[in-house]
């Protein structure tokens, strides 16, 4: 993974070297997420060439159970994202409960306890927007089942910066509000893939190596 060389201290900011290859997958999911994540992560093979960073809305006091469950189901190692840690390819990361997860301007993780956005902390928009700031066209954003509109602003930003957007087919989603809102936010023509859960791992594997 290419990362920028410096951060802060007044530098104007650096961008990943221009390249078509995708650099990061971000996933936003809310109600109904357990089953959806089980199928998406379960379908990704070990050695998946990108980091996968997930915001799953959950109770502010939820513990590490979700991480453990996802680890069991996934071919990728799954852990909670840690402060200032660089995301690694072939690894899945979950935003900690009760923190916003951001991608820092050097590509590493950054956590905040700012007020919830759209009643959510972690916020899908916060992750998508900051990831898009860093990765631009090299970002792949995925919106799965959910009963609110978090992620809509995020996918707008992802598209504005030339990234790819994959949305779970609302017809299949346990809670269609979130995927429908994401599609409406950018217009159906701008969504790269509207897909069923069973198809999403294959699409990600394809996008990860597509140029």
């Amino acid at each position, binding site marked *: 993974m290419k990362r920028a060389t410096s951060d802060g201290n*007044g530098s*104007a900011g650096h961008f990943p070297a221009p390249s078509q290859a995708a650099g990061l997958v971000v996933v936003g999911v809310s109600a109904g997420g357990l089953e959806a994540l089980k199928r998406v992560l379960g379908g990704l093979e070990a050695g998946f060439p990108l980091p996968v960073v997930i915001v799953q809305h959950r109770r502010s006091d939820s513990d590490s159970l979700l991480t453990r469950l996802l680890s069991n189901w996934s071919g990728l190692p799954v852990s909670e994202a840690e*402060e*200032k840690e660089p995301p690694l390819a072939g690894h899945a990361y979950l935003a900690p409960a009760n923190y916003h997860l951001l991608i820092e*301007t050097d590509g590493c993780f*950054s956590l905040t*306890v700012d007020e919830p956005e759209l009643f959510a902390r972690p916020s899908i928009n916060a992750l998508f927007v*900051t990831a898009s700031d860093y990765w631009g066209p090299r970002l792949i954003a995925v919106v799965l089942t959910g009963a609110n509109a978090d992620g809509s602003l995020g996918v707008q930003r992802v598209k504005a910066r030339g990234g790819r957007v994959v949305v779970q087919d609302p017809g299949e989603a346990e809670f269609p509000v979130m995927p429908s809102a994401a599609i409406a936010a950018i217009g159906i023509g701008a969504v790269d893939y509207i897909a069923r859960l069973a198809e999403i791992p294959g699409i990600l594997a394809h996008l990860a190596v597509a140029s």
Partner: protein
Amino acid sequence: MEEAGSLENEKIEMDCLLEAIFRKYGYDFRSYSRSHVLRRLRRRVEIDGLLSFSELQHRVLYDESCLQRVLQDLSINVTEMFRDPAFYQVIRAEVIPVLRTYPFVRIWHAGCASGEEVYSMAILLKEGGLESRCRLYATDFNEATIEKAKDGIYSLADIRSYTANYQKSGGTGVFSDYYTASYDSAIMNRELKKDIVFAHHNLVTDGEFGEMHLIICRNVLIYFNRDLQKRVVSLFSRSLARGGFLWIGSKESLRYDDPEEAFEPVVENARLYRKRYGTDE
């Protein structure tokens, strides 16, 4: 697709804005987490109906009330009493008994925001038998927030969730004994306040606070970039007596921030550290 150039311009303008705030008012956000600052300032530009950070910079320079809003945006105002209750149990078990061995205890709560966690600690000290022989220095860079912390008035709705936290934290008393309810507010008792000194202190630009036995600084370091984190951890090390404790946020760690290994973990999961005895920094 949007030009990458506009994002680059935005970052340049942000740097200029932060430089302007520092040079005009002395508040230094230049070493804060950039993604966080960018996110908060974008929100401010949107709420105020501005076009750019440059426009915000102009207003901040010429209108101090605008600066106050930006300070509020960049301070960490989200807190609760007995946040992470299980960690408070660790403090009761590991720290309070050690503090009891000192004749007089000095505690620094750095970045106290509106004070919820300061009163939580005051309750812990009282229940640990340390009332009247301790001093809790609660500091923040934001004066408006300190005033709120001094008042110690919180909404009754919040108090309900704090009560549950208090019980989970191993509280030995009755939580409602620590405040007086009045309409829809709760006012923290005066006895809790008598050992607390609220003061203005900026971790980025101000110096050390001498000979502390415990420093509490939770969910503040996450807002700093790695260089500033290191500087602040070193400041904490210099401010602590040997064997003094440092307690940081549940998602923070000293893994990258303590190159001199001034600290050793006491209960790593609870993010509780202790200054090594051999360290003279």
